[in-house]
């Protein structure tokens, strides 16, 4: 088996759009099933009331990571043909802080806002209008901020390369971290569950 199939020419650009649509349906279905069409469910993460965002995200990361590295190890997937978004360290640090703050203020992240609109959340529609406005602002400002926005460009960079560790060991450490995180999530939820809004003014 030669994968990624698209990179080996098993189907063309037009067909890839159908694949995109089908993968999107499955993606949206999973997000909604997890409860991520609800801003209250999503933002409960940031008050330690419901750590579903962390649990779902890290379970997904571990599942996809184990699957991909296994398929690469047995030679079915050529990992070098899987696109890894280039690292721009400082813009990504600042971008992450902005997106995280925007997440708890706005109630959704870009993908989950789409699912929320699909299930009738009017605030999600307003949220998407804001996202588009933000993209417009930064797109217009881009020429004047390229100095920062295109700084610390490190290209395709992975954690095994950063820490000079074998990829298998990093995969193992991520799994350990996730399991530790799942345990910690339960502890935090139990500690914060019974706090009324008044105790947390």
């Amino acid at each position, binding site marked *: 088996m030669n994968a990624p199939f698209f990179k080996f020419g098993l189907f063309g650009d037009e067909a890839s759009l159908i694949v995109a649509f089908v993968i999107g349906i499955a993606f949206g279905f999973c997000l909604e099933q997890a409860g991520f069409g609800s801003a209250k469910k999503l933002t409960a993460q940031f*008050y330690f009331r419901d750590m579903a965002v962390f649990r779902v995200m890290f379970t997904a990361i571990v599942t996809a990571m184990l699957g991909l590295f296994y398929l690469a190890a047995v030679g079915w997937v050529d990992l070098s043909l899987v696109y890894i978004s280039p690292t721009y360290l400082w813009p990504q640090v600042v971008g992450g802080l902005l997106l995280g703050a925007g997440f708890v203020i706005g109630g959704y992240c870009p*993908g989950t806002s789409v699912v929320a609109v699909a299930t009738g959340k009017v605030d999600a529609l307003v949220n998407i209008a804001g996202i588009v406005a933000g993209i417009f602002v930064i*797109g217009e400002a881009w020429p004047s901020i390229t100095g920062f926005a295109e700084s610390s460009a490190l290209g395709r960079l992975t954690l095994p390369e950063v820490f000079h560790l074998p990829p298998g060991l990093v995969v193992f450490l991520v799994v350990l971290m996730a399991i530790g995180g799942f345990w910690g999530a339960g502890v935090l939820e139990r500690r914060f569950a019974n706090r009324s809004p008044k105790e947390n003014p």
Partner: protein
Amino acid sequence: MSADSPAARRPPAPYMNPYLAGIGLGLVLLASFVVMGRGLGASGAFTSACAVAIDAVAPAHAQGSSFWSEYLKGGVGHPLKEWLVFEVVGVLVGGFLSGLLAGRVRRTVEKGPRISTRGRFVFAFAGGVLMGIGAKLARGCTSGQALNGGALLSAGGWAFMMMVFAGGYGAAWMVRRQWL
């Protein structure tokens, strides 16, 4: 979407177990890696739509911009015939189907008891603006950077993901009246 659809009258089903939903999401992501050689995304589709809208209003401006012109060059013959645009339309359909099956499709505004609907809309918009800016600086959002980059062990993806949690927890206290 209408409030009197049969699905809306049924009490909504409970959400899926988070680990089960996570495995499902992980398998979708894995399928995307194996079939396409790329991960999932969301904010890129909004950017394509934004670039096309600007191009319709001010073509010279859009095509002269180093930022928008990149998105106008994308897609299979048309900037909206773009992978992420089709994927996000799928997300809309998939989210709707799941919501319909679970009896969760209902026109509503999500907010805590201590904020008005108008106040909620102001926060929803402001948060969106921050996310739009953040996602473009980071070259991706929670899906395109954190989820993909997390699974692919991307250095930038992991840095981004940790900062998303830091930013979320950092701003949470400030907007607690909106949710708690």
